[in-house]
């Protein structure tokens, strides 16, 4: 994180209400260019709602979201790839009847410019050239995530861990500057988590993507994120480096209940 540089993403006073239920209340935070930023909080804290606001699925009731100095509160979700934001979903959201390759190619949608007429005249209009060029780049992503062996398999037939990786591949194919990951490690075993953490770090360091992720595994959050935002009942509890945030008494109360003020930090760090 570079001190003084403008943040890549800034949320200003975000509130989100569904009827009488307030999912988010005046949450503000900023993600700096190049960092791994995590949002944590108990179930129902509003983490996914926050990510949905950033990715354009929900429009916040109040507040605004800025990306690289530009107000992106209003543009719809399908403008996000062009703006530079890609995301994965908490519950798998692959196109289950398409092959892995086609799934990832959908991520190139906003980069492929030729429309349906050119596509129908595949050999004439240059669509073939485009497809081949992007196929090459997609293959790099496939190599990176080590899913070569399933590239022609329908996504719906894959086991869970692989599907998670395909979904990450699809989000990476968007070529985002900011990658939103909604629980990338949910339901994974230790080895798969380690692989995924490595992937995320590589994407951050080598591919130059800023990562904003929601994650429940405190060990992973502590290890790979530079800064953390803690939400509870739609309110922001704390924001800062993980080792500082997790010693915050309010955060500890939200996670462990009122009676645990004396619990050592290590215990919290291993809590799921």
């Amino acid at each position: 994180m570079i001190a003084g540089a403008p943040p890549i993403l800034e949320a200003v006073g975000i509130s989100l209400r569904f009827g009488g239920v307030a999912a988010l209340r005046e949450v503000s935070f900023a993600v700096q260019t190049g960092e791994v930023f995590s949002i944590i909080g108990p179930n129902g804290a509003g983490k996914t709602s926050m990510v949905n606001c950033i990715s354009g699925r929900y429009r916040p009731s109040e507040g605004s979201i800025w990306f690289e100095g530009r107000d992106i509160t209003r543009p719809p979700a399908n403008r996000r790839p062009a703006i530079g934001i890609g995301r994965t979903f908490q519950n798998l959201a692959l196109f289950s009847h398409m092959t892995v390759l086609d799934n990832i190619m959908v991520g190139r949608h906003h980069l492929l410019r030729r429309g349906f007429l050119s596509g129908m005249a595949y050999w004439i209009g240059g669509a073939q050239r485009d497809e081949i060029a992007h196929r090459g780049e997609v293959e790099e992503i496939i190599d990176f995530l080590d899913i070569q062996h399933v590239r022609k398999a329908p996504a719906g037939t894959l086991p869970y861990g692989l599907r998670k990786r395909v979904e990450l591949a699809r989000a990476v194919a968007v070529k985002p500057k900011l990658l939103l990951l909604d629980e990338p490690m949910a339901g994974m075993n230790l080895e798969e988590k380690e692989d995924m953490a490595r992937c995320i770090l590589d994407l951050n360091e080598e591919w130059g993507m800023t990562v904003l992720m929601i994650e429940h595994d405190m060990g992973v959050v502590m290890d790979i994120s530079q800064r953390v935002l803690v939400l509870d009942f739609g309110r922001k509890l704390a924001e800062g480096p993980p080792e500082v945030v997790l010693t915050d008494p309010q955060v500890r109360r939200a996670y462990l209940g009122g009676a645990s003020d004396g619990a050592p930090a290590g215990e919290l760090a291993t809590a799921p």
Partner: protein
Amino acid sequence: MSVMTPAGDYRESYHADMCIFPTRNSRWAMLVGLALCCAAPLVLDRYALSLMINIGMLGIAALGLNILVGFTGQISIGHAAFFGFGAFASAGFADLGVPVLLAMPLAALATTAVGLVFGLPAARLKGLYLVIATLAAQFILEDFFARAQWFSGGVAGRVTDAPNLFGVALDTDARYFYVVLLWVVLSFCAVANLVRTRDGRALIAVRDHYLSAEMMGVDLAYYRTLSFGIASFFAGLGGALYAHYLRFVSVEAFTILFSIQFLAMVIIGGLGSVMGSLLGTCFMVLLPEVVQAVADALQGGAIDRALKLGSSIAFLREMTIGAAIILFLVFEPEGLARRWRLIKAYWKLYPYSY
């Protein structure tokens, strides 16, 4: 089941890996099939040829419906009305002095325009609500045909011309066959290309998971409307071919029953399969012939006397169509296209099962 390629078939470029016909055998099969089709008018009798022409023009319309229902996951039970619109429009253009061969694609474009108007609600509606909206399209268009004398010729219907190529009238089945064949090849190539490129993938993405499709930059409203437009284009093209083949178009042909037959074609053929559209159409065109043949074979026997096959043949046809749809939905929901893939797999792997 993933794609099966023979051992030793290594692709060395993305170009080679992205062919429609991936293996040498499949390319040969395609060329031989095409050559056989070209030779068909020389060997087949007029009746068999007329069945093939029917398969061709209905197949194009079914292909359009498959884009809408199979690939985009929308639904339409007004397809026959668009088919009819294309037929009348082509007849109209021809009457205005446009050469018939040009009137056909023009009529298809006119149908696209109408389809887009009726497709606008499709940008927001799904499932049952869309069924009702397209049902409205069916009845509005049918009513329009019945009332707009200038367009449809009213009750009397409309007589059309045969196409004419450099002074040669394409008025026999043998000659018209090539017109249909040309459009079938063009249409199926175009759609096979569409579904492997950007916008085709976007359509399938809208069907499979519209929320994540949106997050990948796919404009849902645009693609839902687009698929309606493309479906109407092919319906109109099929209708235009129909008009100049029968040389007579009248209102009562394009009923909702006909729309449901189109749906049956894509369900039986295989939703979301380009080849399936043609297989399903073959099935639906040939099924009544089979029923007729069976009835003929049973003539005079005990079953015939009990059921009076001769006089109830029309009902029997409808019933077999209904039964076929139900049986396919129960036993082979992915249609003939999947059955065909299984047969190919069996053949390749014999004597092993996988």
